[in-house]
């Protein structure tokens, strides 16, 4: 019944994955759940046997788990920040991409936030933060900042979903109680629209500084120490730039996959990819500028401990990761995105995937080599992740895919009401653009 009525909707294709649950989704779901269960079994072995089964050791106490923590939190900057900036600047092309961006944020924040608990070895030790926490520790700043960002992002994701959820409730989509509960009595009255507009205006202003502060605070867990390779004043903005960079890349990958799988070519047009990939290119240059500044100041200072760390990164055991990072974060995206011929959807996908890999390598390069070089007279230790660590990295990626799949089967992946609003507001947008233009002589005389 609901399907019949929905088929008359011009935006039916967005609702289609919710109404018509194909066999493919179930198969993918089963595969993802199976992989996830296996990774949880591996986590179980870590719980029983302790952190000794990981590659971590007495000197390199932060490895894959913290790398993944910083990486996932960085990806989370895709959504809420970009969505809020685009909404605030009234960029009309934002409409089909904001929902995907916001979902990405909420999911990866939840995944990233769990990694420090995995790194603790014994998850019950997390309770120590509540009972014996000290606000002077940057680690505790992280806990508060991430909790705050997660709360804000979830609210910012949920509120613009209300009109779409209410539409599904009205069309009798199951589970009806869920849509009824989440729609909060929305009927689309002018008063309700005004309320939602007001709430979103507050949130989009609030979310931007929160997002920026979160990754700055994450950089503080490194830069507040006197560790060579970490103690840097530019780590805050450097981390924020890296986070936005990897976030845009992740958003582009998600958009390309959903466009292909759900046949959303009519919504996610080439212009969206062109705009976002230009932003990715700018961020690539910005990332290179920060990386260059970071290493140049270190090399120019020539402080022996700092130099040992830098040279170890350039030529030591981890040199493939360092130069791989430069290749993936700068060379590949700049080459692909600078030339119109290469800047196709396929090219953008390759560039974005390269940036995601490159940014993961960047997190690895920041964390591991700095710990490898001791300042006291110890022999350097090498860190190689064990199967458990790889499995839990896979757990993060699987959880991301699974959560996105689940979301797309219950809620529209594109904000339908915003698309409809965009169509209705074409005239007002034209007036707004006319308002930006310099006055002509006739208009001046009229005034």
């Amino acid at each position: 019944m609901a399907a019949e009525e929905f088929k008359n909707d011009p935006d039916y294709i967005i609702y289609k994955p919710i109404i018509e649950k194909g066999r493919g989704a179930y198969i993918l779901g089963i595969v993802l759940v199976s992989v996830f269960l296996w990774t949880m079994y591996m986590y179980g072995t870590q719980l029983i046997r302790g952190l000794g089964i990981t590659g971590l050791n007495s000197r390199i106490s932060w490895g894959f788990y913290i790398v993944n923590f910083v990486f996932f939190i960085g990806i989370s900057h895709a959504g809420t920040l970009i969505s809020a900036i685009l909404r605030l600047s009234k960029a009309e092309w934002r409409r089909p991409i904001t929902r995907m961006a916001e979902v990405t944020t909420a999911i990866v924040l939840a995944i990233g936030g769990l990694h420090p608990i995995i790194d603790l070895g014994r998850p019950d030790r997390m309770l120590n933060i509540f009972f014996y926490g000290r606000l002077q520790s940057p680690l505790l700043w992280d806990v508060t900042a991430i909790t705050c960002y997660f709360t804000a992002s979830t609210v910012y994701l949920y509120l613009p979903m209300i009109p779409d959820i209410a539409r599904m409730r009205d069309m009798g989509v199951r589970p009806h109680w869920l849509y009824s509960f989440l729609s909060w009595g929305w009927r689309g009255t002018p008063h309700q629209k005004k309320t939602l507009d007001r709430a979103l205006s507050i949130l989009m202003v609030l979310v931007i500084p929160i997002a920026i502060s979160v990754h700055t605070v994450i950089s503080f867990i490194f830069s507040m120490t006197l560790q060579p390779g970490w103690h840097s004043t530019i780590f805050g903005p450097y981390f924020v730039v890296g986070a936005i960079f990897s976030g845009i890349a992740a958003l582009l990958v998600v958009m390309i996959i959903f466009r292909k799988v759900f046949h959303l070519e009519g919504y996610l047009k080439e212009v969206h990819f062109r705009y976002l990939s230009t932003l990715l290119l700018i961020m690539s240059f910005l990332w290179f500028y920060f990386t260059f500044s970071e290493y140049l100041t270190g090399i120019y200072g020539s402080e022996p401990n700092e130099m040992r760390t830098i040279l170890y990164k350039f030529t030591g055991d981890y040199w493939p990761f360092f130069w791989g990072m430069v290749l993936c974060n700068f060379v590949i995206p700049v080459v692909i995105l600078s030339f119109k011929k290469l800047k196709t959807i396929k090219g953008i996908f390759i560039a974005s995937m390269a940036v995601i890999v490159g940014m993961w390598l960047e997190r690895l390069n920041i964390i591991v080599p700095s710990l490898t070089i001791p300042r006291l007279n110890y022999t350097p230790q090498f860190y190689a992740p064990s199967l458990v660590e790889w499995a839990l990295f896979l757990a993060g990626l699987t959880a991301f895919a699974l959560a996105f799949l689940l979301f797309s089967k219950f809620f529209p992946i594109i904000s339908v009401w915003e698309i409809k609003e965009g169509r209705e507001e074409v005239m007002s947008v034209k007036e707004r653009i006319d308002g930006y233009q310099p006055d002509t002589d006739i208009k001046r005389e009229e005034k």
Partner: protein
Amino acid sequence: MLNFHRDAGTPPYIFAMQILSISFIWVFVAGITWWIVRLIVLSVNLHDAPDLSFIISIVIIPIFFILAGVLTYVFMNLQRNRPEDIDNKEGENEADEKM
């Protein structure tokens, strides 16, 4: 004074769940506030960077209150049935039917 009551189309048990979720948000915010205040008291007692602790709490606590406030504001206003809105909506529906 806000004229807050259940929307006619919302079943009572759903409305109860919605009230519960809003209450949970306030319990969550109150819990975080209590925790941070406790941390400040500890830093003051130990004379261990209390100024820093104050600065962090001054930023964090209001943000949580704003978020909970925004959610409550939206929830209460969506549940509000204003007569002029109902008339407008009915008018719109009639116009749609005529078309």
